[in-house]
């Protein structure tokens, strides 16, 4: 299943992910710059912040309460923000597009 990572500068990288793998893992495992994932996927650092592409926001859905709390402390986060360690690949998300921020600030 395909995911497109768009860097802050507009460069696109498309990779294949298996079901169950998180968008954050996909970036780290494929050496895509723009996602730091300092805590390795434990939702305890907020350095895997991405903006979900407008065409995919509804399908991906909103963050959980704990995730939203963390995102609210991340500079530059918007309604489209998600922590990519919390989004797992599935057939419904085949073709997903995510945009990476210029910098990962963490919280």
């Amino acid at each position, binding site marked *: 299943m395909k995911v497109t990572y768009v860097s802050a500068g507009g460069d696109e990288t498309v990779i294949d992910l*298996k*079901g*169950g*793998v998180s968008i954050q893992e996909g970036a780290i495992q494929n050496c895509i710059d723009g996602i730091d994932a*300092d805590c*390795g*996927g*434990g939702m*305890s650092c907020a350095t895997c912040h991405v903006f979900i592409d407008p065409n995919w926001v509804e399908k991906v859905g909103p963050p959980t309460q*704990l995730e939203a709390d963390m995102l609210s402390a991340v500079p530059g986060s918007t309604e489209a923000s998600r922590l990519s360690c919390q989004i797992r690949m599935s057939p419904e998300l085949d073709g997903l597009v995510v945009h990476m921020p210029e910098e990962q600030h963490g919280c």
Partner: protein
Amino acid sequence: MTAQAALNPRGEQPAHVPDELVIDFDIYNPPGLQDGFHEAWKALHAEGLGDILWTPCNGGHWLTARASVMSDVLSQYETFSSKVIIVPKTRGEEYGILPTHLSPPEHRPYRALLNTGLSPKRIRALTPAIHRIIHQLVEGVRLKGQCNFMEEVAVPFPTSIVMMILGLPIEDGPYLKTYADHIMRPDGTVSITEAYGKLKEYLKPYMDARKENPTDDMISGLVNGTIEGEPLSENDAYELCLEVVIAGLDTVVNFLSFIMYYLANNPEERKRLVEDPSLIPAAADEFVRRFGLVVVGRYVEHDTVFHGVEMKAGEMVINATFLPALDDRINPKPMDIDFDRSSVEHTTFGAGPHRCAGAPLARVEVIAALNAWLSRIPDFMVTPGTKPTFKAGTVGSMEDLHLSWDPATTTSMPIPE
């Protein structure tokens, strides 16, 4: 009372626990363990059993058996805290190591200190050393034609990496591992308190030295770390170091053995990886799904009705984090290894705020080990006449895995720089 019996006190079935949820299951010695660790735990998925079960063993506790209920336990930390994470509770109350017994928000700054030492950036910097160490270990056994895999490869490899990350002498790894084992898989001879004592005694001189003269190792990061601007207390710094020692010396060590046991017994699948090493990362992810080993407990903070089951404050819930991946409601034919699976859904590294901080490191270690071994020793089997022993506990383990091969079928190559 024998040491063994003291380890498994039986609990009275409380009045609010319905008979149909009761199963006699000792997490430290489940029935059928020697036929296979995961196979033994799969008993919790037997036909007719509910998603949540109760066992009188180890003081009496709940068991989550299915993905949906387990992920709720691990993420609903206000109901299911990490105050006590080991059963029996009497042992668990001795255990509390930072940051495993905290919940958010207190948990977060301690976890942030661990994250720094184990981040993907740090792992990238360590990767050449990781490859060098595993290649050296494999080359060290290649021409012997046989090895005790655990002792000669599986233990020294991740142990050396953890010692490097912490900034400790690699040769002291086995000493630390002995005491980590007493904490994770007690045999009744050394109490948790004693084991902690030995480890603290060992670590203190290093921690003092790094406080004086910090380097870029993890111990320096921990002893000089701050929580909300305040320096970490000496005891808190010990506990974070202990956590890395315990977590790093036990998990990948055993995980590698399970993988190699499988590959020794499945020549067709092994051949696929030998002939096409680009499959190794996908194979590693499938192995992570299939061979998880960790069992974590949670403490019920207040009376609750959870998925229709009445639970009372103070009760313990045990979650075998490898079970959801082996749940056929999540992954079809879950006990089969299939490198081409379209989904590798798992909670091998847990879920929620305590999700394993070492997960990215573990993956890199497994991929490095498979590359190093299969490129040098492509053809091997379990030594005839030997059979590994399985052990159960907070981390499941395999001992006495002996492998044999014909040195003439091996390949020599330089050790990477």
